[in-house]
């Protein structure tokens, strides 16, 4: 049973349900209180301790019966109702028939006969061998939905159809030999039942095998962590989708961290001026005290390069920032390729998925036409009100300017107005300054610089920004 539960938890994790070690310990403890006899109570002990999301309940309910089924009943011995004479008759008949058919026999008829006519339960080795023959150990045997299909293949390996013919013949001949028709009828029925049960056992075995394979597979890949450290440029479409889901969870984690920091740093200083003024009416005895409100949540101005090379990074950055809206006082977002556009409204009025698409389609990337210098000048001319002494300005770009005027002066002026000037660059520092990169000119003006090649780095950078 312990083995089962461990396997079950592994299967939940493989399906993407997050189960922590602490939670699996809770599950064990719950089971010690309620036991495993009462299936319903057992199910609820596991569910209450392991599943913490409404969305994950269907997954749980789906997997539970697969791992903790009542089990198929064992095979019966159809010969138990026969007299000794009849049993002997049967044995002789079988011997003869098998000998007659020797040449045409395919599969493992002898074994199948033992199971069906003597009620022996298939041993683990037999099953394992069959499974192997049916291709259950192949690398593509992964989806539990196909259990039936594999079970049928296992039946074929055993010579199921031939067995049916053989049984028909057997019944006929036994009748000819003068066996009691009632006995034959009874035996026939029980063998048919045995066949049903064996079929169930086989498909159950196949299902279990497939589930194990799948879990093993998932464990081997550990996909998400790996993806976090892969560079954005090298991700395939499905991998991107997977990462997008991950962003939501990451954001939740960042939010808790940021929130905790907010809470710990919130106690403002005594505001002497307001306190004195408020307490004048109590002849200066400070009945009401006032504290200075510290504004810890940053105000952000984001300047995004959405040229072709930058798109994946820009997308994930936008997703993270907008998931974290509640930890930020205000965000103004600007995107540029060859000119600058204010995209704040696009991002606020749409759901994040649509928003990202809207922004990216509004600024189609051209061919080598990125102009950061010009865009910065536009920002200074039109939107300088967005930047004040409480604003953190974040530039997300590779600093490649196509040999246009980098606008370092303008950049410096914006930086002096802002609280902080942060640059996120997806390129390796060694590449800065090569070709058309103006990074060395911008770098000394920034208060912080981060390299953001992958999601792990990006998350770290944003965590720092939120301080």
């Amino acid at each position: 049973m312990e083995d089962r539960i461990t396997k079950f938890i592994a299967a939940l994790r493989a399906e993407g349900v997050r189960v922590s070690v602490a939670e699996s310990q809770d599950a064990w403890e719950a089971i010690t209180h309620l036991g495993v006899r009462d299936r319903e109570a057992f199910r609820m002990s596991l569910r209450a301790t392991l599943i913490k999301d409404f969305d994950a309940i269907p997954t749980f309910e789906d997997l539970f019966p697969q791992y903790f089924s009542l089990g198929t009943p064992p095979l019966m011995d159809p010969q138990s109702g026969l007299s000794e004479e009849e049993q002997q008759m049967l044995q002789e008949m079988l011997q003869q028939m098998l000998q007659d058919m020797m040449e045409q026999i395919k599969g493992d008829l002898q074994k199948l006969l033992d199971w069906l006519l003597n009620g022996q339960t298939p041993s683990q080795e037999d099953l394992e061998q069959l499974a192997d023959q049916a291709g259950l150990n192949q690398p593509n045997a992964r989806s539990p939905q196909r259990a039936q299909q594999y079970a049928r293949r296992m039946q074929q390996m055993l010579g199921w159809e031939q067995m049916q013919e053989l049984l028909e013949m057997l019944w006929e001949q036994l009748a000819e030999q003068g066996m009691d028709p009632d006995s034959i009828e009874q035996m026939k029925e029980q063998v048919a039942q045995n066949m049903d049960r064996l079929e169930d056992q086989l498909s159950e075995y196949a299902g279990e095998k497939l589930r194990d394979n799948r879990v093993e597979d998932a464990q081997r890949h550990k996909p998400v962590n790996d993806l976090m450290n892969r560079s954005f440029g090298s991700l395939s479409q499905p991998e991107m989708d997977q990462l997008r889901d991950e962003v939501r969870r990451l954001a939740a984690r960042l939010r808790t961290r940021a929130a905790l920091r907010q809470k710990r740093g919130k106690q403002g200083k005594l505001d002497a001026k307001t306190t004195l003024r408020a307490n004048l009416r109590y002849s200066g005895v400070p009945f009401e005290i006032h504290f200075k409100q510290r504004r810890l949540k940053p105000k952000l101005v984001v300047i995004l390069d959405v040229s072709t090379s930058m798109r994946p990074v820009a997308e994930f950055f936008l997703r993270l920032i907008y998931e974290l809206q509640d930890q930020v006082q205000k965000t103004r977002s600007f995107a540029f390729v060859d000119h600058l556009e204010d995209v704040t409204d696009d991002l606020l009025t749409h759901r994040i998925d649509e928003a990202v698409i809207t922004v990216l389609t509004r600024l189609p990337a051209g061919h080598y036409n990125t102009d950061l210098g010009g865009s910065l000048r536009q920002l200074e001319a039109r939107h300088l009100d967005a930047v004040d002494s409480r604003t953190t300005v974040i530039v997300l770009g590779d600093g490649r300017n196509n040999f246009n005027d980098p606008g370092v002066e303008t950049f410096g002026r914006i930086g002096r107005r802002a609280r902080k000037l942060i640059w996120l660059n997806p390129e390796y520092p060694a590449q800065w300054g090569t070709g058309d990169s103006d990074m060395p000119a911008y770098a000394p003006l920034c208060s912080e610089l981060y390299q953001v090649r992958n999601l792990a780095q990006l998350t770290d950078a944003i965590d720092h920004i939120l301080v």
Partner: protein
Amino acid sequence: MLFNTVEDVKRALADCQYIATDEIATVLYLAEKLGKPLLAEGPAGVGKTELSKAWASATSRELVRLQCYEGLDESKALYEWEYAKQMLYTQLLRDKLSSLLADATSLTDAADRLGAEEDVFFSERFLLPRPLLRAINSDKTTVLLIDEIDRADAEFEAFLLEVLSDFQVSIPELGTIVAKHRPVVFLTSNNTRELSEALKRRCLYLYIGYPSAEEELEIVRLRVPDLAPQLARQAVEMVQTLRTLDLKKNPSVSETLDWARALVTLNARALDNETLENTLTVLLKYEADVERARRVLRRSGGIGYGRSNN
């Protein structure tokens, strides 16, 4: 009171007029045995809050309730110094203080004497305990209900996490207060916001959905015994049908009960056209929903509409 089986829990709740499904009873039993907070999620009005109330009365414990809302902070949830009261006392005790300090020989002596009395002003006398502190500091085990946790800010959730993990609170002036008896904690959430993983990890999870027709009928019978059985059945069937209709707001169990009571008050004999017209607004709170329900019921002949014509 001791509960040794899930059945005991179920029976105790039933005695307090709460019909618990096996699921609810099992999880509650586990929460009690493992000493873990119970996080109940589900649509509004299915009896999440009611469960904790019923449990408090079943175990004859005091119910301490903390209603969460946006902007709830520590001083509202945990404790507050009654600053004005402290101030008032200092003012009133001025004479006493000067007499105490009158024969002090030096400034240091005076300061020492004052220091010796300092505790007077930072004692429990001036401490205003809020729900969390009350639950922790209580002499008996309490049932602590943290209602609608999803409405509080993430900051508050982070703070709650610390309290729920060790059930102790430190008040700088008084020291650390450790719970004498760990309260049984219920958290409810309507899922308007994703709760943090860390909080969920510490709780047992219970999802309470809408009850089945049988369960709901049992609830109606228990809570509104005056309603005729035949009518009760019809009413519940009607509510169950309404829930399948993709409405803006589904009628909750508490609304079913309100409706049942309305039917009793109106002395209704059957769910005929007129009764429905008059009372549908008890169940449905949006005009669009009412319209929609009327249309669908008329088309299908309804539960009540068909019968009333006979």
